[in-house]
């Protein structure tokens, strides 16, 4: 069967729900760097076709088991509060996303990144580089062992500090589901002051980025456990509606 025959017409493709109002606006004056980095033209609707409903299925070939423990990648142990960060990658219909690559990066316990452009006077830890990778299991679960990152200052405004966070990168199974976000820790006093956290329009959606302390994940005399689920776009309710109907 060739792609252009009548039998190939009107392919039944999965269709992903819209995300209107969920993500932060690209133009957000509270985060100054958005000023020159947001498009001024309106976004154009891209119908979800084959390129959009497929995506890279990156998995175990890109990671080793050691990549999930950020505390033991060097000769000595990383310094700081040892934590376990674990959760599930799901879509909004509750379906697990198995065998999918999860990438994280973070500052060390003192709030310093191992990066040439991070020069604020907090110490680097020779035993911590802040990079982790793993793949979800058949139930969509991932788990990292790491160090609780510190808060750090930035130059967005006077006395600006980012709440402690871990960057997360997720693929899902389709180009439509690609997501990069940040995970925060419960009870951080910097939340009301952080423009990046507050750029998310819905206060309830903001809270989804805050991990939960989970005593069942905590390992006795070893590490505190934090639970963080990531929910990617699920299927739209009316899968065969034409894209034109959305306009």
């Amino acid at each position, binding site marked *: *069967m060739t*792609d*252009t025959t009548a039998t190939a*017409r*009107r*392919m039944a*493709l999965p269709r992903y729900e819209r995300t209107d109002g*969920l*993500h*932060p*606006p*690209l133009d*957000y004056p509270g*985060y100054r*760097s958005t*000023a*020159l*980095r*947001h*498009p*001024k*033209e309106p*976004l*154009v609707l*891209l*119908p979800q076709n*084959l*390129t959009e409903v*497929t*995506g*890279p*299925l990156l998995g175990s070939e890109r990671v080793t088991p050691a990549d999930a423990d950020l505390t033991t990648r060097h000769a000595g142990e990383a310094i700081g509060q040892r934590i376990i960060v674990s959760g599930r990658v799901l879509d*909004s*219909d509750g*379906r697990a996303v198995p065998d999918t690559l999860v990438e994280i990066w973070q500052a060390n316990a003192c709030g310093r990144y*191992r*990066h040439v*452009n*991070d020069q604020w006077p907090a110490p680097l830890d020779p035993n911590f580089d*802040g990079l982790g990778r793993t793949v979800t299991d058949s139930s969509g679960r991932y788990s990292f062992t790491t160090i609780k990152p510190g808060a750090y200052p930035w130059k967005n405004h006077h006395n600006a500090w980012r709440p402690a966070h871990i*960057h997360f*990168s997720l693929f899902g199974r*389709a180009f439509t589901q*690609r*997501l*990069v*976000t*940040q995970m925060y820790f419960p009870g951080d006093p910097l939340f009301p002051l952080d423009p*990046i956290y507050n*750029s*998310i329009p*819905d206060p*309830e*959606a903001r809270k*989804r980025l805050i991990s939960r302390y989970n005593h069942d994940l905590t390992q006795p005399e070893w590490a505190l456990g934090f639970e963080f*689920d990531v*929910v*990617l776009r*699920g*299927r739209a309710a009316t899968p065969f509606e034409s894209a034109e109907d959305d306009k």
Partner: protein
Amino acid sequence: MSEPATAEKLGLTPSQTVGPFLRIGLNWQDESSVVPAGTPGAVTIGGRLFDGAGEPVPDGIIETWQADPAGRFAHPDDPRGAVESGVPGFRGFGRSCTANDGSWFVITVRPGPVPAADGTLQAPHLDASVFARGMLNRVVTRIYFPEDAEAHAEDPVLRSLPPERRGTLVAATVEGGYRFDIRLQGGAETPFFDL
């Protein structure tokens, strides 16, 4: 695909910026290699990422996703069937952390045309995501090829753009491949899509 959905939708996780230090987490040694080195017919697609002042963006990342030369995807949601590409080692996916001059590149093979759900044919294209410090969410664009002018005239996505903006999604031929600059804002702003 046919799993029953739960009655109540879970709340979606919102996006946050990759921040200035994305390279720590997202840089791969082989990130630009959509196809392995030495693949016959491989081309380089690259360019520079610019902000609204025309300055290069040195803390961004471009990711590309595309069909293989036959217009197929090794993916279970392709209703024509998931087929491994005839190009050995074809990954379909590339990423490139931008350099200090805002430059990025991937090494790939030209994709074939891909049918749209309604049976019309889309011109060969790559989907691209752009992430950077100062961007609270990714933006999505497409890269087309200059050889396909006839197909462009029929491409439903290009046709959805005002005629004067269509050309900005067509890469330019350069030695060894194609040049595609991305302008986040300003005069020749790249068209970005709501997906």
